[in-house]
């Protein structure tokens, strides 16, 4: 019945309604537009570039590091920064430059892994709680509240006490700590989106809950979650450092920035470079994730987006 095209000629849109968009540019995928806008925010752009560099260093760590992480050289102990050892050497004569590079891999791996755990589990919980409401919401969010009520470090220490120290367990511990954060951010965002008319419109044509959740609710609820991811990465790197500092995270002699910071603390009076360079690495990475998160927050806000896009044209 409705399958046949109509005989009546369709008027062109320009002839019928006012306000046809004059630009004939093809629609670009959203993420490319997002990247374009992000590039106009200097702080976010520089942070993004720097993070990309740090990630590349972490990926190609073994190729980039001049020496192995644990190459001990007794005659080179506690050397200040020089051409041969750009970041100096530690009390065992190990090259700090190499250890900072190799530590990037450890710190970032733990950070990404931890945030991945929190993001996947937390967002799923928040999505279901926010979308279904009622008892689903009550049960899930009460559990999240319980988890959230524990002091973060105590909770992480408890997880590590049960599972034993080490990088993998550190990631798990930090991830568990951040699950309620993602659950709350996602739920709040979903609560707003699920009432949108376009969600009801999609339901009105027969879309299933799964389709509503994956095609409409999650994509539209994503911006705060993406921002939270970036900011949580900063916290996770910091938390890994803190736990390693306390001796619960990465175990010596493996290099991790937090562990190196802890080990260098004892030499702060006589050899500042032991703690300084891993500290700077942590500081820079955390700062970059935070600035990128702020930039994303601005760019992903639809109203902000229109303003920025309009102003740039």
């Amino acid at each position, binding site marked *: 019945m409705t399958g046949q095209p109509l005989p009546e000629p369709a008027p062109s*849109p320009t002839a*019928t309604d006012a306000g046809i968009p004059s630009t004939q540019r093809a629609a670009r995928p959203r993420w490319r537009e997002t990247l374009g806008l992000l590039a106009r925010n200097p702080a976010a752009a520089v942070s993004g570039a720097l993070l990309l560099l740090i990630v590349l260093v972490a990926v190609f760590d073994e190729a980039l590091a001049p020496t192995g992480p644990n190459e001990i050289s007794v005659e080179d102990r506690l050397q200040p920064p020089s051409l041969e050892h750009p970041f100096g050497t530690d009390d065992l004569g190990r090259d700090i430059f190499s250890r900072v590079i190799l530590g990037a891999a450890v710190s970032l791996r733990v950070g990404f892994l931890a945030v991945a755990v929190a993001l996947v589990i937390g967002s799923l919980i928040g999505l279901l709680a926010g979308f279904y409401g009622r008892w689903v919401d009550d049960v899930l969010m009460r559990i999240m509240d319980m988890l959230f009520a524990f002091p973060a470090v105590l909770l992480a220490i408890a997880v590590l006490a049960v599972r034993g120290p080490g990088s993998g367990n550190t990631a798990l511990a930090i991830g568990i700590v951040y699950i309620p954060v993602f659950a709350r951010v996602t739920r709040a965002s979903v609560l707003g989106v699920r009432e949108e008319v376009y969600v009801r419109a*999609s339901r009105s044509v027969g879309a299933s809950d799964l389709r509503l959740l994956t095609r409409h609710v999650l994509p539209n609820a994503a911006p705060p979650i993406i921002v939270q991811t970036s900011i949580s990465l900063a916290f996770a790197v910091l938390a890994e450092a803190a736990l390693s500092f306390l001796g619960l995270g990465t175990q010596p002699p493996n290099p991790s920035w937090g562990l190196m910071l802890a080990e260098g603390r004892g030499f702060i009076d006589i050899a500042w470079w032991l703690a300084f360079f891993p500290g700077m690495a942590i500081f820079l990475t955390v700062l970059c994730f935070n600035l990128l998160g702020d930039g994303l927050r601005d760019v992903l806000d639809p109203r902000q987006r229109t303003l920025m896009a309009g102003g740039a044209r």
Partner: protein
Amino acid sequence: MSDVLVSARGLEVHFPVRSVGLRRTGGGVLRAVDGVDLDIHRGETVGLVGESGCGKSTLGNALLRLVPPTGGRITFDGSDVTALDRRGLKEMRRRAGMVFQDPFASLDPRRTVAQTVAEPLEVHKLRSGRRERAARVGELLEMVGLDPAVASRYPHEFSGGQRQRVGIARALAGEPDFLVCDEAIASLDVSVQAQVLNLLRRLQRQLGLTLLFISHDLSAVRHLSDRIAVMYLGRVVEVGPAATVASDPQMPYTQALLSAVPVPHPARERARQRIVLRGDVPSPSAVPSGCRFRTRCPYVFEPCPDVDPALQPAGAPGQLAACHLHGVVGIPVADDTPEGVTTTPTS
């Protein structure tokens, strides 16, 4: 196969009202739809009018089960909508579509026009393969007067009228029999309203659609509709052929609505008597006993507070009004009799 496509009997949608404070219980109910009887015949256009807040949207949504009814019955093409299983509901939603009021809110900002219009095709597996779906999307866009080349654009690139056309294309993609247009032109520019209205009329004729056209404006629907249903405080209080309801209303509320419409004729406009209603519309969470219109009715007399009037024949053939002026028919207010006992059979 019956002549009636959509039918509501005693349909109720009551929302729980949360009382202020921490406790969720103890609140009252908001009677958004409160005992609606309405038949919509195959191929006809029914205009549903009433003041803002009287429950028109809730009724439209309930007919498609987008809002769960709390009482009464809905049938769609003979089958009980409230009893449908998941598959039945899905098929019902293919056969019944909805065009929403605000075209800026009803399109997902993150999906292209093509993705939006193709959604029913994907959900109901109406076209297999990307190519065929894209072709069908193009066809649908042409059908609503849009250039198929706009398929790859995002909603924010369009004007209100164009967005509403996209919304109509989506509603038509499942090849529905029944379309609910909920104030579909109300939020558009006046210049665009007529175009979209004409589009809907053309589509209705060409596709043989059954239309429920919701509007707060009686004058906007009288020329478009075959029949008009007037709603007041959650209830259809008058229904009948568009011409007679709009020219010779039998229910005082409709008379008041109509008297507020200016007449495009100077002499008759001067002669037009405005019936100004007393007071405000009561809250749907505190519906008056008996006739719900009695607190504002200029003709109120003794049965009004005691008997809830049922729709009964009044005026022209096919016209029904819920008013005791046409004979006291209805459900007496529960005093010592249990609620729901009918003194006179309602038809």
